[in-house]
């Protein structure tokens, strides 16, 4: 069960990282990265690191994403 959870999380991480790499829509990429951080946070919670998970959720998925969205708002959302 626990192994299965890990496998699913790792597969999700890889999939989302690839999606970030592939999409040409920067807004989508930033939001995908936010999701990637949340999955990472779940994985760490499962590894006995709730402090790190909490910080990653707040900083990686939260603050980083807000900053990315603001910057994308000022520079354009399409990647050429």
């Amino acid at each position: 069960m626990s192994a299965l959870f890990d496998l699913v999380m790792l597969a999700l991480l890889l999939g989302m990282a690839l999606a970030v790499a592939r999409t040409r829509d920067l807004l989508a990429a930033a939001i995908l990265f936010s999701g990637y951080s949340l999955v990472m946070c779940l994985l760490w919670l499962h590894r006995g690191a709730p402090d790190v998970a909490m910080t990653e959720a707040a900083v990686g998925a939260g603050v980083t994403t807000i900053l990315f969205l603001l910057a994308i708002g000022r520079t354009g959302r399409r990647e050429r």
Partner: protein
Amino acid sequence: MDGGWQHLDYFAFVALFCIGLYVVLAKSNLVKKLLGLNIMETSVFAFIVTSGMVDGGTAPVVGPGIDAPFASPLPHALILTGIVVAVSITALALALIVEIKRQCGTIEADELKGAE
């Protein structure tokens, strides 16, 4: 590989590291490069957090009725610092991107090279 399937973790993190590095090297858009850098950073964080886990362990918070082994608190503290450093660098890089856009009109590395 004799260490059992949990080395799979490390392999997944190497894959993430390489995906991030690919984005940094191959993508022209600066925002995209920065996302790649963040993926690389989280992959290293994940490696370090995982290196501190313990079979059947719990979070390193001492309390009554907890007799499971603790995950090592040391890597957790390091990664807390690492996450803060990462967001600091991201914030600065995004500020630079906004400034580059304002001054040069584009944030594509290919076009910036031509404009220099």
